[in-house]
């Protein structure tokens, strides 16, 4: 009989309790984000369906806002899992935008050069942030708080000194015909949307200069960047050696070092990546608006952190998910724009933020106890 040749299964350890699928699902860091996303969409589908929130224009509206949050949340998420914070993200956005404006408008450089130099400059500042944190052993909270003020100060000082104003315009004209600018400010899929408009799937303008054109004429590159960065971040974190090092660096830096993980390199690179994400955000914004303002990116660092925490990452590092952070950003964007569509007083958005942040942190702490079996 074949029964005799089969090896018996290894005896189960009686001390290992079976865990329910629900508990197992709860251990996934994305869970909070998933539940939140479903809840938020259900809510607005019920209460704001007729407001135009879910027609082509409405969808594009909250998608763009969510994509903005996503871009900075990816950087903040990986950095937080690596065990550090960056409070200078918002100031970095203002600084990067202003740098592009000064380089291309005031100094007359070609736009592609302005963008590349800005990226190099901002990633270097990110590296400097990381380097100071590693060398001094100070909390990144304090080091990047200093850069929050330093960068914001320069963002206000330079345009005033050079142009005697705090908003520099004319970037769109300067970027005309540039090869790099459309990668941040352009749109893709115009043909598809024109076709959708012709087929009557989405509305077209009925009069005016754009008569016959669809109301949504393409997907902004901002959204493409957001999706690209989320996929990149997710693969990096979960499918590569480096991803394992990010978890290890944030989980216990000393233990990681003992095992041969280059903790310092991981942390500095994550500071640079966060700065890179902030610069992508700034470049897209500047190309879309055609101007840079000294107050751009205000409070963005906190919004990024909130999106990451809603997405299930622990503030203490070592645990989290890029997909979760992206869902956190989506919730953020949908609620912010949805309240507007639903005609709710916009100041209540802040109340919502505070409540959901508190809820997410409490849930995360509970889940952490469950994973590690602490009581």
């Amino acid at each position, binding site marked *: 009989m074949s029964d005799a040749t089969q090896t018996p299964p290894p005896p*189960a350890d009686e001390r290992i309790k079976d865990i329910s699928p629900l508990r197992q699902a709860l251990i996934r860091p994305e869970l909070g984000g998933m539940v939140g996303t479903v809840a938020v969409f259900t809510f607005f589908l019920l209460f704001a369906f007729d407001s135009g929130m879910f027609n082509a224009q409405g969808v594009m509206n909250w998608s763009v806002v969510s994509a903005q949050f996503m871009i900075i949340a990816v950087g903040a998420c990986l950095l937080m899992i690596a065990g550090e914070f960056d409070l200078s993200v918002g100031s970095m956005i203002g600084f990067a935008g202003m740098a592009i404006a000064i380089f291309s408008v005031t100094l007359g450089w070609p736009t592609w050069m302005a963008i590349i130099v800005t990226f190099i400059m901002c990633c270097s500042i990110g590296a400097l942030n990381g380097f100071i944190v590693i060398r001094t052993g100070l909390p990144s909270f304090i080091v990047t708080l200093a850069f929050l003020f330093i960068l914001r100060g320069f963002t206000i000082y330079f345009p005033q000194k050079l142009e005697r104003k705090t908003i520099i315009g004319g970037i769109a004209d300067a970027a005309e015909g540039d090869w790099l600018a459309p990668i941040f400010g352009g749109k893709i899929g115009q043909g598809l949307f024109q076709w959708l408009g012709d087929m009557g799937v989405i509305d077209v303008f009925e009069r005016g200069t754009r008569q016959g054109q669809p109301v949504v004429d393409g997907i902004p590159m901002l959204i493409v960047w957001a999706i690209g960065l989320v996929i990149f971040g997710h693969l990096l974190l*979960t499918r590569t050696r480096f991803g394992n090092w990010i*978890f290890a660096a944030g989980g216990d830096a000393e*233990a*990681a070092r*003992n*095992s041969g993980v280059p903790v310092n390199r991981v942390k500095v690179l994550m500071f640079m990546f966060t700065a890179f994400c902030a610069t992508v955000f700034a470049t897209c914004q500047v190309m879309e608006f055609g101007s840079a303002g000294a107050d751009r990116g205000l409070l963005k660092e906190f919004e990024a952190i909130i999106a990451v925490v809603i997405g299930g990452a622990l503030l203490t590092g070592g645990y989290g998910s890029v997909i979760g952070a992206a869902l956190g950003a989506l919730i953020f964007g949908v609620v912010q724009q949805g309240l507007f569509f639903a005609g709710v007083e916009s100041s209540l958005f802040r109340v919502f933020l505070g409540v959901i942040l508190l809820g997410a942190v409490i849930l995360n702490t509970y889940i952490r106890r469950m994973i*590690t079996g602490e009581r």
Partner: protein
Amino acid sequence: MNSRTEHAPIIQMKNIEKHFGAVIALAGVSIDVYPGECHCLLGDNGAGKSTFIKTMSGVHKPTKGEIVFDGTPMNFDAPRDAMEAGIATVHQHLAMIPLMSVSRNFFMGNEPVKKRFGIPFLDKDKADTVTMQEMRKMGINLRGPDQAVGTLSGGERQTVAISRAVYFGAKVLILDEPTSALGVRQTSNVLATIDKVRKQGVAVVFITHNVRHALAVGDRFTVLNRGQTLGTAQRGQITPDELQDMMAGGQELATLDDALGGTV
């Protein structure tokens, strides 16, 4: 245990001296360790055990003396050099991250990769399979390779750390007081692990100040006291009382022993 003498020692520490400024931490300590033996290093607090194993694992450079590894004199500049030569240390503070899964911890710093589209991705299947297999060898039944290390007991964590070191080719395994913070049952698990590792031909240096733990698995015993070695004894040639006396330097413990009614 005669078979041991047929091999050459895997590591020899000859007359190691280590001075920290005016303090002489080690005043000429010599031991040799053979493949497949468990060499216990005993000593009270401050005897120089930690300094000695840190010299062995490349953390400290000896002030005087020679380290011969596998027949060649070695000069370790950093712990990394010793690690690459095959000397692995499992510290009291384990190199384990509670929030990460067992398999991610097992391969931390040595992750297997598999190229897909020219990009080196983490080979999770291999990591999971190897982890489950190695854990089963050591008698630990995991719920799954994704189980977080935080859910394991202290003894199980030690076992994960030990089997990780062995899997990655350790020839000499230094265990720094692996049983000091464990309960009875967990201690016996760790001692059983040491036994399994020894049978695979790995040389184990087991640091402890618990004579009973040492006698349970040790083949030879070296006692350190005030930076000097009081000699190496074979298993069966020494009684627990003698070991205890040597560790404490004799007299003081004898008086204590009387006062406590022989319970130390």
